């Protein structure tokens, strides 16, 4: 009769294969070159990290009313402390900043409601996209319900930066979708108009567009007709990002199999019906990570409004650097700005990666 087969038991690997020693050997000291690289890296870390910790934490001064009080030899975070409100809200009157906070809390709550199953997603999206902006606008600008009017020229700081980024990306979305459809259309005029627009915008630097928006637009309008500078800059930013958005969305459209278009056609749906009901919902889902990435670049690019004289987050910090009480705090200012931007951008890019993974698995088995 046949011999019965019993697999021999698995043994734990030898210490040369696992465990901290093996790990060190494999990852840091596997060859002479690696030994050298490891030592070199340690040296670089030694050069960079301790001085930063010493400067930024150990010897730092956290409280104080002027640079003169920062005597510990390290960073003068007191500067950030004193100016914190301005960095966040610009020159927005401090007794009114609750309005900004309220708007932020509102949007967080609204977005959080997506997690609740019982709520109609479409209705919620429409609220966020159509009603919320109006509410937020009146909260920010005032002039209704006895809210004090706050000029847009007083809007600034991180508030302005986030506003520019968010409005830019949201507003560029419909325009980008139209341009993307236009570029893929087989109507020569629609196609070439979209193409020329997209490629022109993508060829020029954002500053030229901002410059046009901030000082030149009135030249193109009838005399006397003019509108708010913030609005013009927003339009500039929106046009700019819509060209990039169009390319992102086009990528999504291209990824939709031809069969989907054909199935929609065969069912007798019209062009717009098939776009809105069938193609766009699928394409947009595909491009969400791309959109988040565009948002990250736009968020960084909004710093350029500083060049056209708006005091966004970076602009506020630069301005504060010139305060006679705080001269010589340039590095602290930049470090703080870098830290904040980094948190935002890094967070969003991680989010976009997670999203990519999640959407990826959602599309399997088809």
């Amino acid at each position, binding site marked *: 009769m046949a011999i019965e087969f019993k697999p021999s038991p698995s043994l734990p690997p030898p210490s040369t294969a696992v465990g901290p020693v093996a790990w060190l050997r494999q990852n840091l000291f596997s060859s002479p070159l690696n030994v050298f690289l490891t030592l070199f890296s340690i040296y670089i870390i030694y050069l960079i990290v301790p001085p930063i910790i010493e400067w930024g934490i150990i010897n730092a001064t956290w409280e104080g009313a002027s640079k003169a009080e920062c005597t510990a030899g390290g960073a003068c975070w007191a500067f950030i402390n004193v100016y914190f409100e301005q960095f966040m809200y610009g020159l927005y009157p401090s007794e009114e900043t609750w309005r900004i906070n309220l708007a932020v809390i509102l949007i967080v709550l609204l977005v959080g409601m997506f997690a609740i199953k019982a709520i109609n997603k479409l209705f919620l999206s429409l609220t966020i996209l159509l009603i919320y902006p109006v509410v937020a606008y009146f909260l920010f600008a005032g002039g209704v319900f006895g809210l004090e009017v706050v000029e847009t020229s007083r809007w600034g700081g991180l508030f302005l930066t986030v506003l520019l980024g968010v409005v830019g990306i949201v507003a560029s979305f419909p325009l980008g979708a139209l341009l993307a459809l236009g570029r893929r259309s087989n109507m020569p005029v629609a196609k070439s108009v979209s193409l020329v627009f997209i490629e022109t915008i993508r060829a020029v630097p954002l500053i030229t567009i901002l410059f046009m928006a901030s000082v030149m637009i009135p*030249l193109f309008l009838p005399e006397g007709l003019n509108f708010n500078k913030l609005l013009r800059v927003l339009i500039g930013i929106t046009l700019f990002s819509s060209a990039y958005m169009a390319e992102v969305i086009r990528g999504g459209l291209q990824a939709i199999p031809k069969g989907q278009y054909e199935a929609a056609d065969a069912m007798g749906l019209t062009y717009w019906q098939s776009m809105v009901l069938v193609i766009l919902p699928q394409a947009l889902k595909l491009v969400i990570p791309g959109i988040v990435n565009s948002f990250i670049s736009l968020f960084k690019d909004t710093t350029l409004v500083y060049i056209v004289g708006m005091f966004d987050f970076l602009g506020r910090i630069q301005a504060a650097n010139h305060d006679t009480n705080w001269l010589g705090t340039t590095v602290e200012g930049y470090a703080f700005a870098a830290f904040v931007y980094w948190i935002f951008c890094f967070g969003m890019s991680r989010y976009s990666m997670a999203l990519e993974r999640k959407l990826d698995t959602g599309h399997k088995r088809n």
Partner: protein
Amino acid sequence: MSNIKNIPSNKSFLNDAGNRSLIFQIVLLAVVVFVGYYLFSNLQANLENRGISTGFSFLNEPAGFPILIHLVSYTESSTYGRAFLVALINTFVISLLGIILATIIGVVMGLARLSKNWLVARLATVYIETMRNIPLLLQMFFWYFAVLAALPVPRNSYEFADFLLNKRGIYSPNPIAQDGFGLVIIGFILSIALAIGVIVWAKKRQTRTGLWFPAYWSSLGIILGVTFLFFAAAGFPLEFDLPQKSRFNVTGGMVLPPEFVAVLVALSTYTGAFIAEIVRAGILSVNWGQTEAARSLGLRDSLTQRLIVLPQALRVIIPPLTSQYLNLAKNSSLGAAIAYPELVAVIMGTTLNQTGQAIETIGLCMLVYGSLSLSISLFMNWYNKKMSLIER
């Protein structure tokens, strides 16, 4: 037999698919033309009302302002046209150098992030994630204002051999050719011819005998060696104008101004981080099976990389790399913020301000960036086509 129903009467003009798209396009075109015309006519009226002069004749007038960095001769009495040229060259130079440096940084960091050495990979990750997630303008300000403030004044320059580093820039000796330098040039040309000869010979020899000759290294040696021989023979006909600390500044020598260095460093480290990710993705995209196949053929790892992995990774790398190059060229315009006299600073800044001709100057700038973008992408498309795989 076949009972054709009456064709329905709703065959109206508007229901025809062809007509519909035609009408839509006509309307679209009309809107575009109308908006264009509206803006243009407003512009004309405004220019006229306000007595703003138009046209490009200002390009022939003397500019009157100085420019810090100019690679072609330029004085205050040169024309605006010349100033434009200077700015154009400055933009080109910073873009080109930026592209080269960013590529080097990107490749090194991309490879480092893939390194088997855990620490090296981690460091590269930290570098990439830091650079990518901080706005470029902020980085430029940092390199210019924060680093500048930390450097010594000229009197206390850091010195390395005949090089000086201080708030005014990086100074190096300036070579000045003396009599007999022509001989050195001849020697140089000769050595190149020789080197090419060696490379051709090495190739032939390989085909004949199969033996490899380190042709590239030796031709480098030949070029250096032969040139040096001629140099010595001519009696070292080169003098160096050394930088000297003087009352205010350093005199003599060659200088890289801080504006230039800051823009270059910011552009290349920032873009380098993006390129690093592209390189990494490109290399990862090459199937591991390719490496295994190469190894099982007995190829050393360095050869595997050079002959198998890199050529394939390049195909994936090129298209996104193109857009990074484009971004870098466009981002060079941020140099305006820290006194680097590139196009936006000189044309949209000073020239516009002196002449008041906004439309013309903006137009010039857009034209330059447009053609810069176009030429980079044309080149890259061509290269991409050349590299693309032949499929069934």
